[in-house]
């Protein structure tokens, strides 16, 4: 018997398509239009061609922000992923304490970005903040508003505090899904703790870890609120990450053209890296990891 082909279900996707069109596609098209024109407000535009792209490609300001951004994402990934795995490995596997830890771990994830920023801004202050005051009393010079190293230290520790839980929770979910039989087999073979981790736990966690890395990379690459609230991009431009610079350019200086060119390049970098991560993830899946 011939199978009936009915493609009407595609119409059910229509609402999503419309939503995406209005929230992403149309704004993106507008940004492309802005990027080749100049405006002084009043909705009047003048053709500028490739000028803004050229300006941005040769702008030290953009490259510096990009390096800072890559450094920020690299550092927080290098800390959060191993730390998250370590925390997940040491969490109780069942019972009351397991649930207790899970709730405790999810608390930082529930706090809005600007509140996290405010918490750390106060926490780090030398006059009233616990962290700043303690460091000051220990004789360590710490002033995140004037010292580059202190500013970087603050925003990195803040991000680690805020998001390591996410990695830990994902890794924990991956660990929970490993059947006991694997551990029993390892025990029979007298495998060491390291070998159990290397050959059983890590490969089985690979899928969720890739998701964790992808999520953390994208989030940290687009981070705005937290460092903005704490340092405002300073001292100088030391913590001016890409999106902070972009907002300064687009809203502070109303340079819509350059900002549009800048954001398109920003978008392309994110698109490229996300595609690489996605492809690696899908291929790991196919290999059954």
């Amino acid at each position, binding site marked *: 018997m011939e199978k009936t082909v009915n493609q009407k279900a595609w119409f059910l996707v229509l609402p999503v398509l419309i939503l995406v069109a209005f929230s992403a596609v149309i704004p993106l098209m*507008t940004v492309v239009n802005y990027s080749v024109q100049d405006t002084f407000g009043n*909705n009047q535009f003048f053709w500028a061609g490739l000028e803004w792209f050229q300006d941005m*490609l040769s702008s030290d300001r953009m490259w510096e922000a990009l390096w800072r951004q890559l450094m920020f994402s690299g550092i927080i990934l290098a800390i959060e992923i191993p730390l998250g795995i370590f925390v997940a490995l040491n969490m109780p596997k069942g019972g009351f304490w397991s649930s207790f830890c899970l709730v405790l771990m999810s608390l930082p994830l529930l706090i809005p970005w600007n509140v996290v920023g405010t918490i750390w801004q106060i926490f780090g202050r030398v006059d009233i903040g616990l962290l700043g005051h303690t460091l000051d009393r220990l004789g360590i010079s710490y002033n995140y508003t004037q010292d580059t190293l202190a500013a970087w230290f603050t925003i990195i520790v803040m991000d680690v505090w805020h998001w390591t839980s996410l990695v830990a929770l994902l890794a924990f979910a991956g660990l929970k899904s490993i059947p006991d039989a694997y551990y029993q087999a390892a025990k029979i073979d007298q495998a060491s703790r390291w070998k159990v981790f290397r050959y059983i736990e890590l490969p089985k966690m690979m899928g969720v870890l890739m998701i964790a890395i992808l999520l953390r990379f994208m989030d940290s690459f687009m981070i705005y609120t937290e460092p903005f609230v704490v340092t405002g991009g300073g001292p100088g431009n030391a913590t001016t990450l890409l999106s902070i610079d972009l907002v300064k350019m687009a809203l502070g200086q109303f340079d819509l053209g350059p900002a549009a060119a800048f954001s398109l*390049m920003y978008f392309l970098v994110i698109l*490229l890296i996300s595609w690489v991560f996605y492809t690696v993830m*899908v291929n790991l899946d196919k290999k059954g990891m």
Partner: protein
Amino acid sequence: MDWMAWTWPTAIFFMVIAALLITFTILAIRFPETPRVGVLGIETTRGDRLFITLLGSAFINLAWLGLIGPDTQPWALAVCLVYAAAVFRWV
């Protein structure tokens, strides 16, 4: 539509992309294919190869603009065409 600040070049750019997407959708329906593994060691369909081509072309154009300059920009498109042919042949 005024607020979107349309220009002819950008409109043509999006029309070309839309036409490509429509063409590839029709191709996929008319001539279904099985994914193949190319030089990158990943499975790709025609759609994947189009995506790789478009994303790569964006970077080729930016690199050309940054390294060589805007006067010879149309030549970047020629490089993109060569790149596209290579992607569709070997990836």
